[in-house]
């Protein structure tokens, strides 16, 4: 893992280095407490001769996302003369022991060390875009500079804009935000467009539920994105660039602001960058919570101060974009790839990947896998490798059911697709899309009809309402799906759903509407039996739809230990103590599963709610 980058950073080998993940995931796991605890422990131990004798200075890094969120809080400890050690799931209470044993006594605390899963997680990855994430201090430009930072910019200014575009074209870089349009071509269009004033926009409105790649990139290595923006602006001939970022990402915004300020101070931004005569300014625009603003024409309306509603294309943004000027929009990850291409050369970049999809792709791997987190894989890797090698398999050894790729515009691929390679074209052929990189793994307990309903609910809420197919079509689709999940589906529902899906796909105005039926269509294609079970037998095979299940205690297995009674948030369990067997009141039970996981004898079972009657479906 990024050892090369690490070596470049460590200039003083007498330095004890402690790296703590302070990304959003780490903070949610209590990283700030751990950070403070280290600071306190190190300070209070400084009086001891051991440290002073070694002439060690302590530098507690604020690193960004390491990617392996499932093991948060992850802490790396590097003591000169000792191998670097990583600790997993660190809490503040563990810190004194780590400081005492590892740093002072030079004995790593075995019981807290990362295990095999940690290594498997990194082995099949190719971390290039993420090479600095979790390694450098994102708030210090010197760390970025020490690891070849802004050298691609210097090279770009030397070779000229046309050559820059050529390199990006030759490298075969395709947009990482969704559809996969060739980036070099997009730049060439914008460069060729008439007009003195042009704009570049970095789309950091990462709205797909289940996706946090861009957030991590901005939090952990903001300069890589800035460098891509400056090179892109230079290539298309823009002197002003915008970063449109979700306001739900306060840490990313904060770090971008710091990065912009530092880049200005060092002369990589502003007037006459590196004496080339090229000027570039970057402004941050905060989104206000509208998923549709990820669509480029809607995003521009939003920057202009209007309701973020899409416009028909043509005219394309490359001719008439923001304020009517030629505009180029790229996603965060696309731009972060640019410095790699320019610095290493197109040929080297294109060595990784498949014929039509070059380079790597960053995914947010989440859901029911053992190792969740941020991953970067070479294009062409199979879904199986992602789920089983990097992801370490399914939680609790359950059965894999599906992987959802591409968020609300993507699809669910089942077991038969485990060998499908990850590249733009194979995914589209299978009924999903690359999307921005959300990758949610589902197991036998996930109901595919419920997932389709979930995404439709999301789209329905986020539809801007401008065009009828999306505004009303998705509403009708949601009604049908909700009905099916509630056990009230009727025979005609499937046909209607299919027909609506086709209509919305073919007639909606923008990408949001056109791709909205994808989750329905893909689940329909691969998991039709689940739809049928809901409608025909009023049964949820995954036992997830609440109207179609109930919890029942098997009296023979119940030991009356009262654990379920205590854990029940709805006071739905009678008895369960003093020798009386537990009994769940169906009407009070909210099916939260708390008792299920608590019961030491597994006496509580989820069963079909047989009260619903079956109907006939052809």
């Amino acid at each position, binding site marked *: 893992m990024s050892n090369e980058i690490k070596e470049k950073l460590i200039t003083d080998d007498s330095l004890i280095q402690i790296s703590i993940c302070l990304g959003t995931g780490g903070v949610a796991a209590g990283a700030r407490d751990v950070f403070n605890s280290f600071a306190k422990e190190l300070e209070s131990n400084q009086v001891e001769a051991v440290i002073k004798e070694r002439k060690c200075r302590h530098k507690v890094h604020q690193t960004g996302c390491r990617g392996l969120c499932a093991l948060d809080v992850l802490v790396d400890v590097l003591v000169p003369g000792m191998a670097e050690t990583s600790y997993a799931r660190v809490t503040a209470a563990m810190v004194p022991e780590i400081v005492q044993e590892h740093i002072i006594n030079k004995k790593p605390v075995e019981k807290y060390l990362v295990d095999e899963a940690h290594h498997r997680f990194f082995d099949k990855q190719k971390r290039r875009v993420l090479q600095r994430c979790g390694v450098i201090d994102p708030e210090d430009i010197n760390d970025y500079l020490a690891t070849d930072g802004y050298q691609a910019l210097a090279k770009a200014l030397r070779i000229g804009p046309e050559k820059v575009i050529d390199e990006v074209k030759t490298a075969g870089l395709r947009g990482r935000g969704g559809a996969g349009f060739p980036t070099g071509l997009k730049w060439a269009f914008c460069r060729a467009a008439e007009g003195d004033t042009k704009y570049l926009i970095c789309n950091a409105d990462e709205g797909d*539920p289940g996706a946090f790649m861009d957030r991590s990139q901005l939090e952990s290595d903001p300069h890589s994105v800035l460098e891509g923006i400056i090179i892109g602006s230079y290539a298309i001939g823009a002197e002003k660039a915008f970063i449109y970022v979700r306001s739900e990402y306060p840490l990313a915004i904060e770090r971008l602001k710091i990065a912009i300020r530092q880049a200005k101070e060092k002369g990589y931004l502003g007037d006459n960058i590196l004496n080339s005569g090229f000027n570039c300014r970057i402004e941050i625009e905060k989104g206000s919570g509208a998923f549709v603003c990820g669509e480029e024409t809607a995003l521009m309306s939003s920057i202009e101060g209007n309701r973020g509603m899409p416009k028909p294309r043509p005219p394309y943004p490359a001719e008439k974009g923001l304020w009517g000027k030629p505009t180029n929009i790229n996603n965060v990850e696309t731009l972060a790839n640019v410095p790699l291409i320019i610095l290493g050369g197109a040929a080297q970049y294109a060595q990784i990947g498949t014929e039509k999809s070059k380079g790597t792709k960053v995914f947010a791997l989440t859901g029911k896998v053992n190792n969740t987190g941020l991953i970067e894989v070479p294009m062409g890797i199979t879904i199986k490798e992602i789920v089983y090698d990097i992801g370490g398999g399914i939680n609790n050894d359950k059965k894999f059911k599906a992987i959802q790729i591409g968020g609300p515009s993507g699809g669910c691929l089942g077991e038969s697709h485990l060998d499908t390679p990850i590249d733009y074209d194979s995914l589209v052929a299978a009924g999903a899309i690359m999307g921005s990189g959300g990758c949610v793994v589902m197991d036998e307990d996930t109901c595919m009809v419920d997932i389709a309903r979930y995404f439709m609910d999301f789209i329905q809420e986020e539809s801007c309402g401008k065009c009828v197919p999306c505004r009303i079509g998705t509403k009708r689709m949601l009604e049908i799906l909700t009905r099916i999940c509630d056990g009230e589906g009727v025979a005609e529902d499937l046909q209607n759903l299919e027909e609506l899906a086709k209509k919305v796909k073919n007639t909606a105005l923008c990408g949001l509407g056109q791709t909205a039926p994808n989750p329905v269509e893909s689940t329909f294609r691969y998991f039709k039996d689940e739809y049928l079970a809901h409608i025909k037998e009023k049964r949820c095979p995954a036992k997830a739809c609440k109207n179609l299940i109930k919890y029942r205690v098997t009296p023979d297995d119940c030991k009356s230990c009262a654990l379920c009674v205590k854990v029940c*948030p709805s006071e739905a369990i009678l008895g369960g103590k003093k020798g009386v067997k537990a009994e769940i009141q169906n009407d009070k039970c909210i099916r939260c599963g708390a008792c299920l996981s608590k019961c030491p004898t597994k006496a509580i079972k989820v069963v079909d709610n047989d009260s619903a009657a079956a109907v006939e479906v052809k």
Partner: protein
Amino acid sequence: MTATVSETKQEQKIDLAKLEDVLFHYRGFRGALIPVLQKAQHAYGYLPRPVIERIGESLKLHVSDIYGVITFYSQFRLKPQGKYVIRVCRGTACHVKGSQTIAEKISEKLGIELGETTVDLNFTAEEVACVGACGMAPVMTINEETYGLMTVGKATEAIDGYLEKAGSNLHKE
């Protein structure tokens, strides 16, 4: 059971002076409306009518146009928010791991629908788009605090703590 604090009573207290610096900063600025609304909401906690009117006057926009923008974006609010804002993530990873049951329980516990505020103005509960901490799913946040790997039990416990802090008597109602 939405916030029923008399709106007129609330709005009498609006001090428009806080707005002037923001308006001054953005004068002549293209596309100023959204950043101005964001800053105004930061200052007032929500967007009261007199504030909207003053913004319209300054940016030369119709109140109806501003209202259109406010209602388009989910982060703008026309009503005051509770002292503690509970947000349950409705991202895919959280959904798959049971966030909906957590959201329902919180709504039941506080006696409000999601998106509403308690009468005592102590709590607002809402579902939000992915907060981007999917590795810790299901996730909820209370003000700036992020809670990962939630269960219904842990969520109710956390809220009990805040209920006590706020001296809320919702329990007794």
